[in-house]
């Protein structure tokens, strides 16, 4: 392999350490690269680590701390312990938001991956697949507000979709944007925009599977489904498990799509369509009432907890022995 030289260079210092030699003082002339790297390590990492700690990790810690207080952001903080979490649990709006979040996570996830897999399999056999993949991928680069607003016009009671349906003879087309349908519409839009992205990831993974495996499988008489089951699936399992984690994180933080869906009715969307991210936003930055920062950060931590639990569980469930090829 092309990395033969560096491997021996690194190995020599490692063997020395193992044999009891001093790693901090290598023999003269040995691995000057290693020495200068050690010196540069902290200089190179400190700025990024500092920014990460101050602007990312400290805020996360601060959120955890705030979640134990009752606070409007201006007056004094009042200790509440875990009572904020108890309040959340009893708040029907939060429970509904949490249900919505879980619905997006599970139903949305299953649909997205089912479509992404189907698309990946079809695209592989298609002409001009790169063009099709690019078009299907594009929606994930667009601010979700755009689709929320567009849906508001397309699906409005007298909008293009209903007019078309009426022209086709459907006299009473559904009220797409009525509160009871909003969740489903949001979910559908989400699945549609996300599918292209996961299709592209899966295709990238599948394209790396060496062709001879398929040829061998074909020679052994495996049909298309068996080739998928015994070659494609195991070979891109790692990527699937990363995708599942990725979906968990991104589905929990969906915000602008819900905020703007249907062109937003007034200052905030109806609470039936909220997810936990929306709940955090509305509790922390309400238009009419006092901010409830403790409750909001507690809700945010519930969503973080959700991500952590799912990530751990998914990692467990999807773990397989890595395959070398």
């Amino acid at each position, binding site marked *: 392999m092309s990395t033969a030289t560096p491997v021996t260079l690194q190995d020599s210092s490692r063997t020395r350490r193992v044999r009891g030699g001093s790693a901090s003082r290598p023999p003269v002339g040995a691995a000057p690269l290693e020495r200068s790297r050690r010196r540069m390590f902290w200089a190179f*990492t400190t700025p990024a680590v500092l920014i990460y700690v101050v602007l990312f990790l400290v805020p996360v810690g601060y959120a955890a701390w705030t979640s134990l207080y009752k606070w409007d952001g201006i007056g004094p903080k009042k200790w509440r312990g875990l009572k904020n979490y108890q309040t959340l649990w009893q708040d029907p709006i939060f429970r509904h938001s949490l249900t919505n979040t879980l619905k997006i996570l599970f139903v949305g996830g299953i649909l997205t991956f089912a479509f992404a897999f189907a698309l990946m399999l079809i695209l592989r056999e298609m002409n001009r697949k790169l063009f099709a993949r690019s078009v*299907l991928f594009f929606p994930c680069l667009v601010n979700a*507000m755009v689709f929320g607003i567009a849906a508001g016009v397309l699906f409005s009671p007298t909008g293009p979709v209903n007019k078309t349906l009426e022209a086709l003879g459907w006299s009473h087309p559904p009220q797409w944007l009525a509160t009871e349908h909003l969740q489903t519409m949001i979910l559908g839009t989400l699945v549609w925009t996300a599918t292209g992205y996961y299709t592209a990831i899966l295709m990238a993974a599948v394209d790396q599977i060496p062709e001879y495996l398929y040829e061998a499988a074909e020679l052994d008489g495996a049909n298309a489904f068996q080739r998928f089951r015994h070659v494609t699936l195991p070979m891109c399992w790692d*990527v699937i498990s990363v995708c599942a984690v990725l979906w968990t994180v991104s589905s929990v933080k969906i915000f602008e799509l819900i905020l703007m869906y249907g062109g937003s009715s007034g200052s905030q969307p109806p609470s039936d369509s909220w997810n936990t991210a929306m709940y955090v936003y509305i509790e922390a930055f309400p238009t009419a009432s006092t901010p409830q920062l403790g409750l909001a950060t507690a809700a945010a931590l519930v969503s973080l907890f959700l991500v952590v639990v799912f990530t751990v569980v998914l990692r467990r469930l999807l773990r397989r022995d890595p395959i070398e090829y």
Partner: protein
Amino acid sequence: MTSRTTTAARRKRKPASLPMRIATGVVWVVVAADIALIGWILLTSLRDGTDILNHPFGAPTHPKFANYSKVFSDGGFGRAALNSVLVAVLSSVLAVAVAAPCAYALARRRNRVSGAMSMTFAMGLGVPGQVMVVPLFIGMAKVNLDDSQPGLILVYLGLAMPFTVYLLTGFFAGIPQVLEEAAVLDGAGALRTFTRVILPVARGGLVTAFLLQFISAWNETLFAIVLTHSQDKVTLPVALSNFVQEAQLNGLDWGAMFAGVCVVLAPMIALFSWLGSRIIQGMTVGIGK
């Protein structure tokens, strides 16, 4: 390899079964629907409200560029577009500039400290934004950076760290070490090796990291809504959401609303048609492998 793949694919494609042909047809319908939707949004931005209501799918008979002048003047989109460019470009440049040396150090030095550090950065990938939104809002107010572009840039810089470091670490790890050895033999120190040898070689990865961060900063809405509110400080997503909400009160002007949507959308179309494959690669290979 590629030639073998294509011949194999071609050979497989010849006896396309009926279900496969139907499936392919469905995929093309979806592709066409995607293009039609984007096209419809672009066209609608040039029409006036009543026209859209009566003939939703018609072509703009008299292209109304007034929709655009309306959002730029009444909606404050001119200033907002400028802010969006400023915030997205600066935060992405800074994110890459800060993350690159760190990612390089993490990719090259493998021990317990660097392992723990990489792990800590990777953990950040799993934290949803709403967790940090209240603390950052309060923190920025404390240091008088609320409702300001520097504040928003700093916030985006912090949020960018996990992914940018993660992506670039993978990228640097793929650069052969032989290059540095040659540089060291020529007498270059680590800093000089990094700036003169590694960075030029890594240009592709740095551009990809910049692009992905630019795209996410351009579209970011939650922090922008929370952290900016003055007319001259907001970014495009905030301006758009304000415009839509005001339009709800004053009666919808669909044409102008879609002009606003297009101001947010158009740069992504331009960027994607120019650098599409690089963007897809960055977002897929960076995650997938």
